[in-house]
């Protein structure tokens, strides 16, 4: 009640920055490099400079959530990474829900617990870093939604007739307070799809998670993750979804790479390509498909690209 839950994008990002610190995601750069490329292309279109830094490391949130890393380590890593952004005087933008939650939760802990901040700063102080909490953490999807009109104006390849469904992923909406939409019934991706000319599809299990977030795909794959994903993809298939978007490369791995396994296990014929929201936007903005790295996808996009009259190469 004290803090506003849902805020409008203009309140969240009052002024569109000239440059942002783009926080590289491991999965988004290794498993689906097209995500990184699409984010950079879209930011370029929007006139926002994406600054990266080779000194930035992995956010380490995934391994922490898998109980493999101690939180003390991740607090120090977060402090170090954000100190780099702070030094540049830029706000941090991530393109992975995991990084978003890792950075925002850890920075929240650092900022609200004096002793933890002091401990982290002492650890990173030996190399001259210092974290003070001046850089704010955002997800690039907030920028997309903030500049929805500008993106809509720039669409040169309207996604007309394409039935697109959203997978929001959990770790942006789970922040609950001060975010763009209601975690109970988010619609801002669907609004973006409409802006791109596509037909948004509301399928039954739209808000089911991907099941991979804390490595359960490695430990409980048969027991829960696959039945869980079956439930989700099945409901999308029933609703006639042609393409699904994510805002988290981790979710993308689960939804894309598991489809052949689900087909084998359950005798299904799922074929719903899963790409990043930024890739969809970049596609509509006319970025050639060859720059969007769809080759990394297990469930191929060829028929979708054909429908949109663009080959892989164009």
């Amino acid at each position, binding site marked *: *009640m004290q803090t506003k*839950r849902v805020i409008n994008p203009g309140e969240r990002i009052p002024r569109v920055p000239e440059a942002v610190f783009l926080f590289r995601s491991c999965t988004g750069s290794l498993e689906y490099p097209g995500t990184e490329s699409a984010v950079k292309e879209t930011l370029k279109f929007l006139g926002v400079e994406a600054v990266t830094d080779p000194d930035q490391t992995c956010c380490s949130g995934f391994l922490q959530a898998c109980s493999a890393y101690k939180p003390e380590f991740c607090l120090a890593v977060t402090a170090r990474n954000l100190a780099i952004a702070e030094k540049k005087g830029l706000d941090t933008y991530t393109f992975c829900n995991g990084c978003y939650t890792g950075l925002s939760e850890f920075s929240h802990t650092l900022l609200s617990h004096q002793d933890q901040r002091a401990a982290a700063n002492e650890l990173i102080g030996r190399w001259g870093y210092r974290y003070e909490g001046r850089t704010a953490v955002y997800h690039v999807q907030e920028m997309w939604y903030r500049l929805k009109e500008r993106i809509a104006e720039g669409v040169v390849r309207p996604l007309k007739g394409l039935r697109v469904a959203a997978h929001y992923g959990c770790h942006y909406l789970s922040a609950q307070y001060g975010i763009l939409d*209601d*975690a*109970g*019934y988010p619609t801002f991706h669907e609004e973006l799809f409409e802006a791109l000319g596509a037909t948004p599809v509301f399928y*039954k*299990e739209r*808000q089911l998670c991907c099941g991979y977030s804390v490595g359960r795909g490695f430990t409980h794959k048969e027991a829960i993750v696959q039945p869980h994903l079956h439930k989700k993809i099945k409901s999308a298939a029933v609703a006639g979804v042609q393409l699904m978007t994510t805002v988290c490369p981790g979710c993308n791995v689960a939804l894309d790479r598991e489809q052949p396994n689900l087909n084998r296990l359950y005798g299904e014929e799922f074929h719903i390509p899963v790409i990043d929201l930024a890739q969809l936007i970049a596609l509509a903005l006319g970025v050639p498909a060859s720059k969007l790295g769809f080759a990394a996808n297990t469930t191929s996009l060829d028929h979708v690209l054909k429908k949109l009259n663009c080959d892989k190469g164009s």
Partner: protein
Amino acid sequence: MTKAGKTALIIGGGVAGMEAALRIGQAGFDCVLAEKEEVLGGTVLQLSSSFPRWENPLELVEERISQLKLCGRIKIMTATSAIESRVSKHGYSVTLQSRNGETTNLDIDAVVLATGFGMMDVSVYGEYGYGIYPEVVNSLEFEARIKAWSAGLGKVPEGVAFFKCVGSRDRSKGYPYCSKICCMYTAKQAGLVKDMFPYTKVYVFYMDYRAAGKCYEEFVREVIEKKHVTYVRGRPAKILPEGGKLLVRAEDTLIGIPIEVSVDIVVLASAAVPRRETGPLAEMFGAKADKYGFLERQRFSLAKASDRVFFAGGCGFPLETLAAQQEGASAAAEVIELFAHE
């Protein structure tokens, strides 16, 4: 016996306001009863039955209106709201405005605020989809459906689910307090549905039922045991549209298993909240409100909010019809006492 020269203004013509006006008028003082709507009765007008006796609340309203008219000292002003007030020699000088813009100035010696309560906008619960799915309604809207059904209109539902504590006892998106009346009216509505359609499945999702009052517990037990309404202990987590119906996901916490149920209508017992109008009125008369906007009574007083300002009914806290009548009478007692001493 006339006691001319003393006038009380009652703002709000619901059950509490009518009761206060009637008592003050019958004690021989002049009264002005201002009601924002075209007709007297307030929230009760929307109700189709009452607990714990299954009575028609409209009969009460009709009886009170005829008594008010008979009294002779009460001026009823419908479609009228108070827009301004100044402290005057004996009390307040109040400007009333009717809906068509006419203003009236009144010198009054005391005011009783009886603005009632409203329903929380539960569309903040995206998981319940109020405002998205047309068959998800709040309890007051459902009263209209009950009225339609009893008039032979509308489709017979196969299943109805009631969610209690939507917005109440919710520190996250709602209010921490218990709205007090939802347990009872939900039982009433569920019972009414069962009376009309015995083959309709009726589920009430509850955390606990708070039935503190004369014959209240018996009332709820009757609904469960005699009318066979299914009470499921657990707060529902999600409503999904499926095959033209609404699929509810919840846990049966008594056995600890996740459950699903498919129904036609979901009724949300929204938290009762202060009306929008109460805040400005309270400010106008210097009455103190608590952090939610409900009016606060002065220490050891029954109805006094500030000097010559009293309140009754739902603007203090959500309450049932009988309690609203009692509060109206309490406020009247304080006004009469004040007037009698001057």
